[in-house]
């Protein structure tokens, strides 16, 4: 993939269509002593080739947000199904040139930061990035335009305020979402839930009250977000490593201190 540079359009030929052909003669490939690639005439974007069955390995996938691990310690991919799933290298439809490759717009364009397993953060987390919690978080979480996901082994002892909150682990604190709250089958929530929409899967545990509010009521406008919570770059992200710095910047200084403390004594 790294060979594709610039605005020149290349054509990717499906493997299946190569296999159907007879092996080319060597003379077809050699000219003036150099090996030349035969021009794949049938791989142009024409209606005939577009009818070919697409190989499964090259199915076009939307370019998704890639998680950025704050502590960068665990290299294991986050087990969250939605936003934190590590995205493989973006594949391209075999019959479509790179220039016109459909980079599907994701529902949320900012990146997801991850509080990895083994990390414990105390303080206030603010910003408008998405956040995945696989470790522990204590204090307050307020993501104006973001989504908070508490992973199955994540433990949160904080009030969470976000657009969308998805809980698979343990939360002790109130959940306030301006869009929706989802409680997974193994989730445990001790606290009130205020949201316009709620999804509770069988097996979820909720100890607290459920109150419906109007959509958008929970999160204040983005303009009122505190200056300390520098927003994460809203550009579409294709590489997890690129957003590491910006995701770290989304943390407040308080949480940075907590992170440093946790990194020093990560025994707990």
């Amino acid at each position: 993939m790294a060979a594709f540079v610039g605005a020149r359009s290349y054509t990717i030929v499906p493997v299946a269509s190569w296999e159907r052909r007879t092996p080319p003669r060597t003379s077809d490939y050699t000219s003036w002593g150099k090996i030349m690639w035969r021009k794949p005439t049938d791989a142009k974007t024409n209606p005939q080739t577009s009818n070919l069955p697409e190989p499964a390995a090259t199915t076009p996938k939307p370019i998704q947000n890639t998680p950025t691990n704050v502590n960068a310690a665990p290299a294991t991919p986050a087990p969250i199904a939605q936003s934190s799933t590590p995205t493989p290298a973006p594949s391209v439809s075999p019959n479509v040139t790179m220039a016109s490759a459909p980079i599907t717009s994701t529902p949320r364009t900012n990146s997801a930061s991850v509080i990895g397993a083994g990390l414990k953060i105390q303080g206030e987390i603010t910003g408008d990035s998405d956040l995945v919690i696989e470790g522990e978080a204590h204090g307050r979480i307020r993501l104006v335009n973001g989504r908070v996901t508490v992973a199955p082994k994540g433990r949160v002892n904080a009030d969470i305020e976000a657009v969308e909150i998805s809980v698979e682990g343990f939360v002790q604190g109130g959940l306030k979402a301006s869009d929706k709250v989802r409680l997974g089958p193994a989730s445990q929530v001790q606290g009130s839930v205020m949201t316009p929409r709620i999804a509770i899967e069988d097996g979820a545990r909720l100890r607290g009250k459920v109150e419906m509010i109007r959509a958008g009521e929970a999160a204040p406008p983005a303009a009122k977000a505190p200056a300390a919570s520098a927003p994460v770059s809203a550009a579409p992200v294709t590489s997890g490593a690129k957003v590491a710095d910006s995701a770290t910047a989304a943390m407040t200084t308080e949480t940075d201190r907590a992170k440093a403390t946790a990194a020093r004594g990560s025994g707990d």
Partner: protein
Amino acid sequence: MSWTAKPRLNPTAPTLKPTGSAKPGPKAVEANGNVRISNGLKEFLWLIDGSSQGRILDLGAVFQTTVMFFIERGFRLSTEDMMRSWKEFLTTEEESMRNMKVGDESARVSQGMLAGKFLDSNLQYPEDNFHGVLAWDLFDYLDAELLPRVMERLYTVLRPGGAVLASFHSKTPERFNRYKIVDGQNIELIPSPSLAVHSRIFQNREILDIFGKFRSSKTFVGRDQVREALFLK
């Protein structure tokens, strides 16, 4: 009696099925084996009807349909899975007892003290807070020391005129169920891993004694011999 009114007895005979546009009525819901009619729920809803922004406390497991059922009717629902909390509390206590040093009697507590300790961190709500309390498959399973304290606490958190809907088995249940509200008069039984041993079968007089401070409203007996009792504060 007209002979034409007799039901079709031949099970292999073709039956008319409702078209896709027809709404599933109560009978269609009843066709599901785990769904039972709950006259107690129907009466409970009638009792709490009219309390705008009323607050309901569900002491069972939380289910989406139950939550939405009350939310859509303008109620605010609080849930607390008391059986599971009790079981986890006991497990924790047993664990700490196991880790006690031999001969250390200071940490040993009686059942009554355990019940008090449990309620120190559970069922903590303001007084006169709820308009209704749902307690299916709960009181049958609670410890004898815990039960009267729970009833006392429920009486405190219930508003005057508020209602408690509770169910009691007439025979030892084959399995432990959770309850999910399907609609205004149907509930679905969800078989679940047993969280506690069914402690005892209460006679009607004993049930009245348990709800000592409450006023008895109505009692319904289902085909499954489960009694649903409604009590008012």
